[in-house]
């Protein structure tokens, strides 16, 4: 919708390059989204299901009632944070895919540091603060390490962050199966539960937990940081051209490590909320693929922290509607995974459209500003 309004600027007024670029960055993802809905509808027709029923159900399950909206927001919380963890390094030119590991490590660190706090009877808000800081520190250290290796040792950050993810998961498993295992967790090794008194509740008047609020707040803060401060300007310049940035005397190494550490903090915080809100302890459930879905959310949002929030909510809604689709249409719960997969593939293929649609090119319109 907004693509049309932004694109159909009256011909009498000359749209400037910024407006055109913005319109393009809205139009292409929306086009890709509808393209993938079309492909998925064809898929449904082939297997003999009604696309209209499906999308009606997704709408009902995702946004139909205040309950389902709250469910969607709930599910979007970790996605906002892991998407930020991909988007911020992407702005400085790094492809960092280790959010999964930083989330797991952050969640585990929070659960581990909670053990003495809970047994010592610390006040809940203080315990939360310490847990959150520990989780962010653990995540920040992890992704920051990948950034450091990249700049100072020339190690490719994509692969090192992937490897570090596996190492993080192994660290959690090691402690969860060993020293920090709760003897009561027989089939699924876990850390000691933090207990109901230390579980974080919902935002008053809703069922939405505080992780969503934290995600939105961080998205706004990081948007301001990346587009309204010298730090953000320097980071984006480094992302555009490292050599030029070095020639200008920018502290490239510091910027890279800082952006990666921020990213890790976001993912670590997601882990903290998973533990303090959802699971109440650290175990293998933390390895839920949020890190990888976050990457694709960040791509759909064009690495813009503010756009990440609505995109994450859309994916949260699709995930939240999964149960309803399963019950009403008798389709497997993996249906939403197929839809997500199609969206991701089409979306990334649509990246090729940037700069190719004549309508959005000022040169082609003959009104260079």
């Amino acid at each position, binding site marked *: 919708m907004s693509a049309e309004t932004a694109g159909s600027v009256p011909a009498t007024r000359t749209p400037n390059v910024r407006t055109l670029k913005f319109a393009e960055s809205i139009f292409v993802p929306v086009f890709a989204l509808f393209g993938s809905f079309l492909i998925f509808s064809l898929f449904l027709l082939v297997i003999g299901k009604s696309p209209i029923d499906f999308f009606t159900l997704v709408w009902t399950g995702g946004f139909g009632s205040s309950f389902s909206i709250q469910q969607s927001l709930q599910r979007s919380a970790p996605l906002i944070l892991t998407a930020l963890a991909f988007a911020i390094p992407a702005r400085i030119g790094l492809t960092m895919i280790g959010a999964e590991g930083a989330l797991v490590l952050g969640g585990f660190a929070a659960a581990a540091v909670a053990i003495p706090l809970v047994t010592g009877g610390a006040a809940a808000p203080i315990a939360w603060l310490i847990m959150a800081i520990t989780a962010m520190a653990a995540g920040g250290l992890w992704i920051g390490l990948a950034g450091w290796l990249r700049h100072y040792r020339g*190690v490719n950050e*994509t692969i090192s962050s992937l490897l570090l993810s*596996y190492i993080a998961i192994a660290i959690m498993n090691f402690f969860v199966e060993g020293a920090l295992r709760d003897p009561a967790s027989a089939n699924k090794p876990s850390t000691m539960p933090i207990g109901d008194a230390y579980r974080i509740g919902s935002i008053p008047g809703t069922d939405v937990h505080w992780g969503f609020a934290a995600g939105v707040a961080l998205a706004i803060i990081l948007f301001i940081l990346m587009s309204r401060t010298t730090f953000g300007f320097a980071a984006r310049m480094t992302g555009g051209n490292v050599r030029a940035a070095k020639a200008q005397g920018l502290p490239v190494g510091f910027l890279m490590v800082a952006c990666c550490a921020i990213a890790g903090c976001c993912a670590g915080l997601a882990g903290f909320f998973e533990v303090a809100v959802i699971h109440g302890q650290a175990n293998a459930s933390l390895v839920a693929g949020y890190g990888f879905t976050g990457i*694709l959310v960040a791509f759909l949002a064009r690495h813009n922290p503010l756009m990440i929030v609505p995109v994450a909510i859309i994916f949260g809604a699709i995930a939240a509607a999964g149960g309803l689709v399963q019950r009403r249409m008798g389709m497997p719960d993996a*249906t939403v995974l*197929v839809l997500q997969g199609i969206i991701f*593939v089409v979306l990334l*293929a649509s*990246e*090729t459209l940037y700069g190719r649609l004549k309508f959005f090119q000022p040169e082609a319109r003959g009104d260079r500003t």
Partner: protein
Amino acid sequence: MMDSAFITVLIAMLGGAIRVSTPFMFVALGECLTEKSGRINLGLEGNLVLGAMVAYAISFHTGNPWIGVLAAGGSGLILGALHGYICKLPKVNDIAVGIAIMSFGTGVAFFFGKPYIQPSAPRLDAIHLGDWTGNSALAQALQVNPLFFVGIILAVAMSWAFANTRWGLIVRMTGDSAASARAMGVSVDWVRFLATAAGGFLAGVGGAFLSLYYPGSWNQGLSSGQGLMAVALVIFARWDPIRCIWAALLFGAAGAIGPSLQSVGISQGYYFFNAAPYILTLFIMIASARSKGAAREVPGELSITK
């Protein structure tokens, strides 16, 4: 007493390494071929899971597991071709496309795989290499699946082809310098498309091994990230098919340490052995990142090593 426990662990590890390493071998060889052509495919996890599901389903319906293996390769070929086609488009990020393919492939596999979790399909038979020893533990460890040997033959053939054939030279040239490949009149996009599709085929076969031999059933938690680790394996093997076999065996052995220790009653602390190959790969990357000698082995066009 200590000695016999030690030998039990060693034998269990040998058998485990051979069993666990086979899927690693196929994804690594597939990834190696793709990366040699100058492109990286992070989506082989999707091929692996889809391959496992397709192999199981086809084996169940036809009663012949080998048709299942071929079908798994075919499904991997399609996913690889999809990756190769999308990456041909300008401005598309091959790493992100890989993650999208991974998510698409696993989604499709879980969607169509639901009805096959319960029924049991005919599985691949093993070749009994150790029956003559008269030692039941050793005999069990030496039950080797034919796909293991297929993988080794394939690695030798690939290694030979890279060095001695026109096709091998074209793939290597495309991977080292797209500009010189173009100057020779080679279509870079086409070579990479074929290499990605063929690599996808191999990863699909690796998936078939998972569902039809070891662990030998289909469920959603079947793969433990073997496809995703293919990239690390190939770096570990420095883009050499023969070394891919050794790397796969090493990764397999590390994965087999846990269950082998469990067989003698040690059930804790082996997670670090599981993580050992990843730590080792990371150190190799750190050590070789700035070395000129190591840089010679890396395909020059690869986005992850620039």
